[in-house]
């Protein structure tokens, strides 16, 4: 069935593909960490009773969630340099480069999704827990840091990781700003050697194996944490 195919190309290009995978994993983890951090702040703002805090956060989340990811990446790659030039008045000012554009775009985009997950997680912590924390004399910051968020994150771990798996797949979009992630590396080898079928099959297999394994781990975590309380 596979006569005429050359699967050797995969082995020859493995070091290059590995570089791409390292980039993909790095970008995924950094944007996940940044997205969860920013998403937590946004969630706290959205839950605040102060309009000055909850309106902008709500607007941000709704805007980002109604925008295609690829558009957000373009914003940061093409528009931010223009903005920097305008603001600094320096016509030769440099942009922030493709990597940071992508990282910031992913972080901000994911933050909108994480915000909604974390908001639900915080609301899942019973009100009595918050009251008990306050009754002991803890202030808002301590009550959140020591009582509410630890419980909220425990409930949220599976869904946060699931979102991370989606992000892992979405990072393949960085090819649009000329970055070489795993998908991009596979694509380049495919074009160069004319081995499209082999390379794309291999890429699909790698994505499938990684995501499938990760989902499986998430499922097991879900079982463990749902019993824990």
């Amino acid at each position: 069935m596979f006569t005429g195919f050359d699967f050797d190309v995969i082995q020859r290009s493995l070091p290059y593909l590995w570089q791409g995978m390292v980039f993909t994993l790095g970008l995924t983890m950094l944007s996940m960490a940044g997205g969860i951090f920013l998403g937590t702040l946004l969630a706290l703002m959205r839950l605040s009773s102060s309009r000055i805090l909850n309106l902008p956060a709500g607007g941000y989340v709704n805007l980002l969630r109604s925008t295609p990811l690829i558009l957000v990446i373009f914003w940061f790659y093409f528009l931010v340099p223009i903005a920097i030039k305008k603001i600094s008045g320096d016509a030769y000012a440099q942009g922030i480069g493709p990597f940071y554009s992508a990282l910031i775009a992913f972080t901000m985009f994911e933050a909108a999704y994480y915000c909604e997950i974390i908001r639900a997680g915080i609301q899942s912590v019973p009100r009595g827990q918050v009251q008990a924390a306050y009754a002991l004399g803890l202030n808002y910051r301590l009550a959140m840091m020591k009582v509410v968020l630890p419980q909220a994150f425990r409930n949220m771990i599976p869904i946060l990781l699931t979102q991370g798996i989606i992000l892992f797949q979405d990072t393949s979009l960085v090819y649009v700003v000329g970055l070489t992630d795993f998908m991009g590396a596979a694509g380049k080898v495919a074009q160069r050697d004319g081995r499209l079928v082999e390379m794309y099959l291999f890429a699909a297999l790698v994505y499938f194996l990684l995501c499938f394994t990760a989902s499986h781990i998430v499922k097991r975590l879900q079982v463990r944490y749902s019993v824990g309380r």
Partner: protein
Amino acid sequence: MIEMKNISKWYGSFQVLNDCTTKVEKGEVVVVCGPSGSGKSTLIKCVNGLEPFQKGEITVNGVSVGDPATDLPKLRSHIGMVFQNFELFPHMTVTENINLAQIKVLGRSPAEATERSLALLNRVGLSEQAPKHPGQLSGGQQQRVAIARALAMDPIAMLFDEPTSALDPEMINEVLDVMVELATEGMTMMVVTHEMGFARKVAHRVIFMDEGRIEEDAAKEEFFGSPRSERSQLFLSKILHH
């Protein structure tokens, strides 16, 4: 010690508290009873500012609770509170539960806090449970831990919000015993409860609430002897004879 003047509170257009005025003196034990939905829990939660109120004034040790300038966390750290559903923090061990506010609010060292926590656990008879998580304890044990957690802050008064309502009958006494001991030691206590045995034993005064009003506020002997209002007579006859 605790003084409430003309407290009224609304949830939207529904009035939960209607012009409530009462006092708890230092060392006094006041039991608050009444049918469910009468506002007892809301009233007691107003005392440490967990529930905001729209009218009236509450002062604790001379500090106004409703005043926006009041440092509520600081005020609350002096008032212990015990909840119907215990509200121990499930992600911490028993000791960590009792240590948390001692370290973060009172600024005690971890060693100092742990020493105090273990002493209090010993006092409520739960020394062996120190390293466990709340989920591994029975309801009665959890509530005793919650009392120890409140006592660790060296409170000047204790608020109890239906501390035995969520307990299985056989566990009620172990919690009441701890509370009786506290009362006889002279702790200032405000207790929302239906346990009239407890009220008879240690209360100085009994407050009866109905539909957000304080219908009766009388010395214990007077309340159990001849309650003046019809509602409280009816209520007493219902909960005392069954």
